Each structure stands twice: as C-alpha cells, then as structure tokens.
C-alpha cells in the first residue's frame, strides 16, 4: 500500500511538472508577459523597459529555472496588475472556489445517489424514465444558462435568495445547483446502470429470492458494489468543476473565486496572474485524481494496485 502510494504521488508530481512546463512554454516561448501587458502601439523602447523590469530579457533557460524553482517554494511571480505576489492573490481566492466546489459536490451526490437507486428500483417504469429525462435535460443545458434561469426564478421573481456575490451560506445555494445539476444527471445514469447490472448477478438474485425486498437489496448489497465506481465518477465531476464549471459560474454569480480572478486577469492583460491561477487549478485537478484513487482503494480492496 505504502509503495503504491509513493508511486502514485511521484506520478502526480510528474504530471504537475509537465503541465506547468507546458504553461511556461505558452507564456514565455510563444509570447511573453511584457508583450501581452502592453498595447499594440507601444514603442520598442517601452517594450524593452518592461522586459527588463520583468526579467524577460534574460535567456529562456534561466527564466525557466527561476519559474521551476519558484514553483517548488510556492512563488508564482509578481502580478503587475495588482502589484502583489500572484500566489498570494490566487490563494486568497481559493477558499471561495473550494466552498463552491464543496456545495456543488454535495448537490451532485445528494441528488445522484437516490435518483440512481430509484431509477434502478423501478427499472423501465415511470421513475426510471423521469430520472432519464432529468439527466438528458441537465447534461444538455449549459450550466451558466441554468445559473441565469435560477437567478431569474428564485432571486428576481421570488426573491428568496440574493442574486450575486457571496453572503454566507444562502448565496451558495444557487451556484451549487447550477454546477451540480449536470454532474448529478451524469452520475445518476451511471449509478442506475451499475445497480441494474449488479441486480442480475447471482448474489443479488439470491438475496431477492430469499425474500429480501428490492429496495433492501439495492441499498445494502448492490449499491455497495457500485460505490467504488460512484466515487471515481464523483472525482471526475470534481475535476470538471475545478476546470470548467467554476470559472463560468463564478462569472455568472460574481463569486470571488480563482476562476473569476483569472478572467479579470485576462481582461487586465496580466499573463503572470493567469498563469498562477491555471497552475493552481491544474494542481487541484491532479490532487483530486490522487485522492480519488486512494478513496477507491480504501472502499474496494479488490481495486488493482496499478
């Protein structure tokens, strides 16, 4: 177990290293932060000054070494839009993003598990079709549009919740649903499929024929066997959230998270800050994948120690 863990951690660190190097290639080889920060009509002199100020006039290898050694100690460069260390700006916004992802994950799991079980319980009956309908609708609608619909109905028309910003728990509700509905739709179908397959296996047929009710068999027998797949898929949804949904939903709800910071940084031509946000989000994705692997291993010891 320990050896497996060590190997997984090294592999994860390697992926982070490759991804950040790719980011460096885009931000320093194809273009550079000074060029991006200046308007097109800036004079050559002005550009040279800015390059020197940012240390971009040095050889690429030296810059790369600086970048990598900075990463190791958590230094992601200096944001020239905010005049502060980029890592500090990103880390300040990180709790908001994590809160949002936690809320969305709660919505996802709390909707998907019962819906999947209900659909499998009443296979090919009304509940099953209703859950399929919900899944198809939720995965087909863009999350940012769901966000605006929720705002129009619950904030503007009914006035139950605040429209924008983060004011405590209540303002977390709408964005969590905007992100979580699509994930719940995918996960519910996967759960249903898993349980239906398991119900055909001998152990489940035995349980049923010994007189256990369908609901008891699903909750106590088959769902446990689907659980490891459920965790893996939840992990997948988490990575989707970190990298796509949160960015868009943070813009919709004016949520002060890392994604919205990155969008503002793009608007202000602050390449260093965008780079810092992307590096942090990509690292979160890798860490999530690692945690999912460990969780799977703990839930289901049959999972191969690959």
């Amino acid at each position: 177990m320990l050896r497996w863990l060590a190997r997984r951690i090294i592999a994860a660190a390697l992926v982070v290293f490759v991804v950040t190097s790719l980011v460096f290639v885009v931000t320093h080889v194809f273009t550079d932060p000074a060029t991006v920060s200046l308007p097109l009509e800036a004079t050559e002199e002005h550009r040279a000054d800015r390059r020197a100020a940012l240390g971009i006039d040095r050889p690429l290898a030296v810059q790369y070494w600086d970048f990598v050694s900075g990463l190791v100690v958590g230094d992601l460069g200096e944001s020239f839009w905010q005049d502060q260390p980029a890592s500090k700006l990103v880390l300040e916004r990180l709790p908001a993003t994590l809160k949002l992802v936690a809320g969305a994950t709660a919505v996802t799991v709390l909707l998907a598990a019962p819906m999947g079980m209900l659909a499998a319980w009443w296979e090919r009956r009304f509940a099953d079709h209703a859950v399929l309908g919900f899944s198809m609708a939720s995965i087909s609608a863009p999350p940012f549009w769901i966000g605006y619909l929720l705002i129009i109905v619950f904030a503007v028309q009914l006035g139950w919740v605040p429209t924008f910003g983060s004011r405590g728990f209540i303002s977390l509700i709408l964005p969590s649903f905007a992100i979580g509905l699509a994930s719940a739709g995918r996960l519910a179908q996967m759960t249903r499929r898993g349980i239906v397959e398991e119900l055909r296996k001998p152990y489940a047929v035995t349980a049923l024929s010994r007189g256990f009710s369908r609901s008891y068999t699903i909750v106590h027998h088959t769902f446990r066997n689907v659980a490891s797949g459920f965790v893996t898929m939840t992990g997948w949804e988490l990575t989707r959230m970190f990298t796509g949904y949160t960015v868009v939903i943070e813009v919709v709800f004016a949520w002060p998270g890392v994604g919205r910071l990155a969008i503002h940084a793009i608007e202000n031509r602050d390449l260093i800050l965008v780079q810092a946000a992307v590096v942090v989000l990509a690292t979160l994705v890798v860490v999530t994948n690692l945690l999912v692997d460990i969780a799977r291993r703990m839930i289901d010891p049959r999972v191969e120690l690959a």
Partner: protein
Amino acid sequence: MTAVDDTMSSGADTGAADAAPPEGVTVLSDLRSHLRKSKAGISGILICSVFAVVATIGPWLPFIKDPAQQSLPDKLTPPVGWGGTWAHPLGTDQLGRDILARLIDGARISLLVGLAAVFIAAILGTALGLIAGYVGGKIDTLIISAADVQMAFPGVLAGLILVAAFGPSVWLVIIVIAISSWMVFTRVGRGLVLTLKTSLFVEASELSGAPSSRVMWRHLLPNLVSSLITLCVLELAAAILSESAFAFLGFGVQPPRSSWGLMIQQGRNYITDGWWIVTFAGLAISIVVLGVNLLSLWLQSFNDVAEREQIILERPGG
C-alpha cells in the same frame, strides 16, 4: 504447412468480408428498423436535421430579418404572448435587434466550431490511438502518458492561458476544444486496436507481408469506424456546449457577429426587464445539445449488441 495456409486464407477472407458491401447493407437496414423503434433516435435525428438546415440556409429563409439591424425604438420588445407582436416573434434585444434572426445567425457558429473541433480531435486522436495500440512499446507509453497529462489539463484551463497569451478568436476556440477532446479518441481507439490486434485477419495480413501502415489503414481502421462515429456524436454535444461557454466568457466570436453564448453574455444585464434574451439563447443551445445527445444515446444502444438483437427479434417478421 497446409494447415497454416488454410488459416491464412480464411483469415484473409474474414478481412475482406468486413469491408464487403452485403454486410454494410444489412447494417443500414438494421439501423433503419432500429430507428423506427426508438423515440430518442427519431427526435435526435429530427432536431439535428433542423439545426443543420437552419445553420446552413438560415439567412435565406423567408421572413427572417437582418440579425445586425438595430432599431432603438423597438428595443427590448417582449416576445409574442408576453405583449409582443409577430414583427419580432421572440422579441428584440437591448439594441432592438430581432432575437429570432440572431439565433439563426448564431446556429452557424455553433455548428461550424463544433464540427471543426470534433473533426480535428477525431483525426488526431484516432491516428495516435491506432499507432499506440498497434505499434506498442515506448511509443505506446509516450502517447498514453500524453493522454493522461491532457486529462489533468482540461480545455478551459488551456483556453484561459491561450486566450491570455494570444487574445480571443474563433480559431483559438476550435483548437482549444480539439485539444481537450483528442485523448478520448486515442483511448477508445487504442483499446479497440489492442483487442483486434490478435485477430486472425490482422495476423494474416501481417504474415502476407503487408506494411504496418496498410494493416492499420485497411484492416484496423474500418473496424473502429462505428465506435468512433458514436464517439464523434457524443463529443459534438460537448463541443457545442464548450463553444457556448467560451463565447459567453468572451473568448470566441467577437461582436457584431453573434453566437448563442455571446447573446447570453450580452443579455445578462437585462434579465429583469428582458428575460427573453438569455432564456431563448440558452434554450437554443439546450435543444440542439439535447438533440445531439439523443442521437448519441440511440447510436450507443444500436452498438450495444444485446439490445440490438432484442430489437431485431421484436421486429415483425424478423
């Protein structure tokens, strides 16, 4: 020796039979009868065809206004049924432009970006998957590691950094969507090749001296097509959704061109006195993506052999 010859010739026959026309004809007629049984398949094909037609000939449809025509006195006219008139069936936006005309104009961008991105991803991804699966060894390890890294660095992040570096453009969006989807084709293609590689017809072709390129192109690829088409449809749904998200963030099409995602971005300041802008634009995206998803659901069920046999058995006279 004769035994070997027999295996070889029968192997070669299997390979030839895979590409023979009678096989294809049965698949097509099966597909048609399968479609008649499937409400999801019919609705999916219907929605997708309407979308494709509107996107292609939209501007030449009768009674459609100029999507760029502004008319400030008519701004924020509600749709028919909410106090509007048939002059603007779906109402107008903050500049008095006709929503219906702008939706039709936006369909074009969604279709173009979606198809282009999936096309690039499918070609690149399948080629890499074929090579990884067939050649194996170090090349396989390299390609699969690249796919794993790509999984950890999904589209929107790549999009953020590329837009920050090069500025927004439609081409950039196409490339970003393509690079966030190629590894799906690589993984599926590689998996299928690994199982096919040991088949008799592949071995026969190798033994008869065919170069790897010919084995991959003539014998392996045709066997991947049906799975890959299903995958293309699935990825098309994702690509259209991604395009709308990028357009919404302002990374794709720039005004005055319109796109569904961009309409939502521009309409979001008017959700109190002009809810229809955001609502109809989002509805257009959702319906099209739903159509593509239904199509993919049906194709998957057709590729699922057990379910197909069930439906063929139920066929009257079958």
